[in-house]
């Protein structure tokens, strides 16, 4: 085990995988000498050279398409998006091409491709650089969508992503990069997709949280415990595939559920999770499933306002208390 920051855990897995598989290369903006603006490729140019650590022009659609062509022809590209908000520039290549080519070409095309980068609040980057955009990519079949909430999960899930033969959307969080955690040193350490992690056990209510919200849910659970409410915190880790077995098992035990994500509440992944809980576990529920997500406005620049838009610890506590009636 080593204590690693989330960003370092990501960089180390990329390097380890590149050492053992020469078909892996990394492409993106300012990832060479700069090492990525969040340091996730720091030092990789020195070790792997310009042929495998490729600084691209600011051409998101173009280099995503180039990555697809490379993946179709035997390579395993990792594409770094400086901000996942910029995937909007490349939506055709991601949603119409990467997600669909295998299906449309009758199963004969294989696309081992990882698109990764950070998103979310925390730096006052305003509306076009602070969003959480994962839901878009869960709507079109063909992609897998990953959201690690800590360094250990980031390492294990990224290794699985790199070794997977499908296009993967890997959503890091800018406010998590500096968080440290113990990460196994084993260069085969991986976490399978579609396996949720129960981050805290409890019998009274289930809080299903993703990414940055996992930490807030755990804080909320500590506060609720003082009020004699034991919350179970479930982190799906991958929202596609989604581990409904673990979520259902928890909800059937507690009878109550709050789903919380940083992305907009309206048509967010929480809507999918909540309705699937109701489809699968309705008769076990003692209260309606509650969703928490960003308010329906553009993420504001001002940090006080930014915090007012996304769910805070207090909001989670209040939501749980609201459904904890007897």
């Amino acid at each position: 085990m080593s204590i690693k920051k989330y960003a370092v855990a990501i960089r180390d897995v990329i390097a380890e995988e590149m050492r053992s598989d020469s078909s892996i290369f990394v492409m993106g903006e300012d990832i060479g000498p700069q090492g990525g603006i969040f340091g996730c490729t720091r030092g990789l140019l020195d070790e792997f050279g310009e042929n495998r650590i490729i600084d691209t022009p600011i051409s998101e659609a173009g280099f995503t398409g180039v990555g697809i062509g490379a993946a179709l022809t035997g390579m395993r590209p990792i594409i770094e998006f400086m901000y996942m908000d910029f995937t909007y520039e490349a939506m055709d290549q991601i949603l119409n091409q990467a997600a669909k080519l295998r299906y449309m070409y009758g199963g004969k095309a294989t696309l081992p491709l990882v698109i990764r980068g950070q998103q979310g609040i925390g730096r006052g980057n305003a509306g076009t650089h602070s969003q959480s955009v994962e839901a878009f990519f869960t709507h079109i079949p063909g992609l897998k969508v990953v959201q690690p909430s800590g360094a250990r999960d980031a390492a294990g899930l990224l290794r699985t992503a790199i070794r997977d033969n499908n296009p993967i959307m890997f959503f890091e969080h800018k406010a998590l990069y500096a968080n440290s955690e113990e990460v196994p040193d084993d260069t085969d350490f991986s976490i399978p997709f579609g396996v949720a992690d129960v981050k805290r056990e409890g019998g009274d209510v289930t809080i299903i949280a993703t990414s940055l919200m996992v930490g807030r849910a755990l804080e909320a659970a500590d506060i609720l415990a003082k009020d004699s409410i034991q919350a179970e915190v479930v982190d799906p880790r991958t929202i596609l595939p989604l581990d409904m077995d673990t979520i259902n098992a928890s909800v059937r035990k507690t009878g109550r559920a709050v789903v919380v994500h940083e992305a907009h509440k309206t048509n967010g992944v929480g809507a999918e999770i909540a309705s699937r809980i109701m489809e699968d576990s309705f008769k076990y529920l003692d209260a309606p499933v509650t969703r928490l997500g960003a308010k329906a406005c553009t993420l504001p620049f001002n940090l006080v306002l930014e915090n007012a838009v996304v769910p805070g610890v207090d909001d989670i506590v209040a939501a749980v208390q609201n459904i904890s009636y007897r």
Partner: protein
Amino acid sequence: MDKKTILKVYETMLTIRKFEECALKLFEENKLRGSVHLSIGQEAVPAATGTFLRDEDYITSTHRGHGHAIAKGARVDLAMAELMGKTTGYCGGRGGSMHIAEVEKGNLGANAIVGAGIPHATGAALSARIRGTDQVAVTYFGDGASNEGIFHETLNMASLWNLPVVFICENNQFGLSTPQSKACSVKDIAVRAGAYDMPGEVVDGNDVFAVEKAFLKAVKRAKEGKGPTLLEMKTYRWKGHWTGDPEVYRTREEVEAWKKKCPILRLEKHMVDKGVMSTAEIANKHKEVDGVIRKAEEFALTSPEPDPATVLDNVYFGEVN
């Protein structure tokens, strides 16, 4: 071109023409659905380029892509079955006319999104470069596609990185109903190469010899590590944009004038003049290709529809829990 090569190019053109005439007939008989984009009149471009590629070289193509697939070696029976959405088709009926692909033979696929295949070929070229092979990638696209941002982004990267890719713009004068003059800031799309510091050349796209010459030069340049080339093949689409196009945007006279420049008739005349083939041999070749297409049609018509129980196959590689 030696005699054998000329015959190969000729047969490829004839196969594309008759394949598409058959597709049109099937469409008119209501046996084939969706939208079918015919490249009748444009056959010299795929025939005098694709014929010169090896299996390991790559192509990407467009909504008007039957010719590119056939010239790269696609089987007409499997292609016709795909046009009819049959289970025996190249994509098992999942892709249709606009998505014929055969990845293992270097056809990385036709694409129904204008311009979307351009970066895929360029990525294949990047992959060849990283793997250290001498493979070449070719991407076909229309005049309309050269107004898409991704065309410009990709040409910039291909030139910046000196990639072994040949950009082939088939300028058939229209993007759907819009003439090139109403959509392009430039008269010759080839000049757009200059913006990316790569050679650009205007070619008579109805002359197989001109197409071959320009293409082989571009392939040589790519293989020598000197980077990409943009070739603009001036040609003309005889049929509507797709089956059912009212064609309000041009006159019959204009179409008839271009029919006189038919690339197939032109090569036949050349072959007779030079003694490569006699008129009788040409007539026989037509009959032979007619027979091949008839068999393909029969194969497609008698192939089974896909089983709805398989509709979820191949969304992902492997099982997804």
